[in-house]
């Protein structure tokens, strides 16, 4: 359901359509993963970096950022660009952490110099970014980060262990939450930018997911020296800055951030199409009223989510400023998970066939999507944590810890 565009936006949408039409890239030799954070091969990296640069040069990336930082300087263009990239089913933008988390954080909290230095190459995918929040012992408890940052003159010395860092194998930079003091759990945190590639003391180890694929990593820091100029915002402001980052990640979960990729709309259409062509008994899965009821429930949740995002921008229909934005992440990720589970129910026995099997429905995407969905419901604050946040910040209930 498209929103009404201003004349400028309508022109821009037209431009996006035409440009994407003329510049749709040939698919890479090997199948792209479902999500940018799963990219693990050098071939895919090169292919996707080239693609993002092209989109950036065409004005489809960073449209709403100030032009002095390499943005397009427009208003409400990015949503349109994302919609059109989604509609055109072109490859996704690889620098998703950079665009979704690092860039907005730098824009809000960075110095003039930081904005000028880091944003343009980020937009152009000349420099890939990753994110260092989670730690082995901490899980959802981000504020309990133990990675230490010790002041040493004009430098900081980092020591610690980060996990769940997608794209770290390709990343030049990482936004990282570190502890400069143990006095206060929250005030003891400071936020930095740290180099990753070819940096003495930094080791990146790929972790393997339950899907059998790689795509996220653990990163170890041993006496890594970074200048104070790479600190984001004040010492002790780390938690506040991290909240900015996570907020934008949740926003990104609306499906806009990642550019191409099927997204939730595609998932639902795929579900219905799958059901209608999957034989079941003497008819199809769609003719099974119980399965159909489940599919329609998923479709309703998807439509509701889309309308919530729309309502979130209508002041007169919003009771609490954070009420809708804070729901985005948990709703999207659980919907994706449940949709994949229903997809598996539809495929029945064929749900046993995985991506390598040529008889697997939709190329084995349904079991893959279901397995991958747990990355979404666990990463960046589990669904359980999200519900705590909603209950506490929006409904004012007592903290559960």
């Amino acid at each position: 359901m498209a929103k009404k565009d201003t004349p400028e936006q309508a022109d821009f949408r037209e431009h996006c359509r035409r440009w994407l039409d003329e510049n749709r890239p040939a698919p890479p030799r090997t199948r792209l993963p479902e999500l940018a954070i799963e990219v693990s091969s050098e071939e895919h990296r090169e292919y996707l970096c080239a693609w993002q640069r092209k989109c950036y040069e065409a004005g489809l990336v960073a449209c709403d950022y100030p032009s002095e930082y390499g943005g397009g300087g427009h208003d409400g263009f990015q949503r349109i660009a994302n919609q059109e990239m989604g509609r055109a089913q072109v490859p996704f933008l690889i620098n998703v952490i950079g665009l979704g988390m690092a860039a907005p954080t730098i824009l809000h909290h960075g110095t003039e110099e930081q904005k000028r230095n880091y944003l343009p190459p980020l937009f152009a995918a000349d420099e890939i970014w990753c994110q260092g929040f989670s730690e082995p012992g901490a899980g959802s408890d981000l504020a309990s980060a133990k990675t230490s940052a010790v002041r040493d003159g004009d430098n900081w010395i980092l020591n610690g262990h980060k996990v769940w860092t997608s794209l770290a194998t390709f990343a030049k930079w990482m936004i990282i939450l570190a502890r400069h003091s143990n006095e206060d759990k929250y005030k003891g945190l400071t936020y930095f930018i740290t180099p990753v590639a070819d940096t003495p003391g930094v080791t990146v180890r790929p972790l393997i997911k339950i899907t059998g694929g790689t795509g996220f990593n653990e990163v170890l820091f041993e006496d890594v020296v970074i200048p104070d100029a790479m600190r984001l915002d004040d010492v002790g402001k780390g938690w506040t800055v991290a909240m900015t980052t996570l907020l934008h990640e949740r926003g990104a979960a609306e499906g806009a951030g990642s550019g191409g990729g099927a997204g939730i709309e595609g998932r639902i259409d795929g579900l219905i199409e799958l059901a209608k062509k999957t034989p079941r008994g003497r008819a199809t899965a769609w003719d099974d009223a119980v399965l159909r009821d489940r599919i329609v429930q998923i479709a309703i949740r998807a439509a509701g989510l889309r309308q919530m995002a729309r309502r979130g921008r209508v002041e007169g229909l919003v009771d609490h400023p954070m009420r809708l934005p804070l729901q985005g992440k948990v709703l999207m990720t659980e919907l994706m998970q449940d949709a994949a589970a229903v997809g598996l129910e539809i495929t029945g026995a064929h749900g046993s066939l995985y991506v390598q099997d040529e008889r697997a429905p939709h190329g084995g995407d349904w079991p893959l999507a279901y397995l991958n969905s747990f990355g979404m419901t666990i990463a960046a604050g589990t669904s359980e944590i999200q519900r705590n946040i909603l209950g506490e910040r929006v409904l004012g209930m007592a903290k559960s810890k």
Partner: protein
Amino acid sequence: MQPRDFGFGEDEKMLRDSVRKFLSDTFPVDKLRQLVAGDHVEAYESKTPPLNYDVNLWKQIVDLGWTALAVPEQAGGVGMKMVAVAAVAEEAGRAALPSPLLPTLVVTCVLREAGSAGANKALERIVGGDAATMAMTNAQGSWLPEDTDVGAADANDGTRLSGTAYFVQDARKVGFFIVAASSAAGVGLYCVDADAPGVTIHPDHIVDLTRDQAHVEFADVVVTPDAVIASPGEGSDALRRATPAMLVIISADLCGAAEWQLQTTAEYARVRSQFDHPLGFFQAVKHPIVNMMIDIDRARSLVYAAACEIDTGEPSAEITARMAKSAAADTAAFASNRSVQLHGGIGFTWECDVHIYFKRQMHNQMLYGDGIYQRAALGALL
């Protein structure tokens, strides 16, 4: 092209806020309790079910023009958009308002679709202060007009209606019924005064304390040509076109009531302590309440999307409206269940307000078809 803001602009916001303020000032929940849940024996054991109705409050509502909202200007109404009607219905739900407002709004939407001379006359009566309700459901409880148990037969003095309409909402509060009656030529719609000769209202004993319901008997009731809303065959089309609006109105009421259940339960979880913590500290309390909120926000968003599609004449309006009813009905079922459970012992007592909303929601859920019913209908549309 759909307006980004659902067409919910300043006027709609002002209207909604004024409705909300009026109801919270004039009809707070303790007034509601006194009116509908005063004495439990009278509530459920009196021979004739009580009416639980405040006529003066209704008069004020009429004077405020809420019933004329959806009436087109040429019929003397305000001619506001469906999103405005949804907002008013949502506030009525939030207040669990016992009144014929909802059925009257529903009738207004049906009359708008009928668009006949008789329909305009009926709309003028509504502007004039008459409340109205649909009489279209058969003994089985089918929501399809074709299934009506009322028959229409031509006679020299007009049309004669015979049969009984069931599950007629707020039947004892209205001035006239819009009766769906079938003949060989199909279903027609007829305007019948509540006190017309041959009309007998049999009140039902229902669970919901904020409504009255009845089955209404029509014994050879004469309808003059100027009271024909839709001629045989056209009645079912008018009703089908009005279905999205009917679903939006009831769904908005469900969402408003569910929001009350959410806020009341959250408040209880904030103030009530157990095991040396506020209840809300416990995730077994906090997370279900959060899930209530999530469900409400999804349903409420679909309600305004559907209303907006009606306003802009989108063919997808029926799909979105059925999605809204499905989401709102399931939201209400869950919110009602948890609002009683999480209030614990006190929530099980008559003195606690939650049961009043619980029962209104039970009623709203089934009205015009519950979630399973709507999703079955959607199966044919997707």
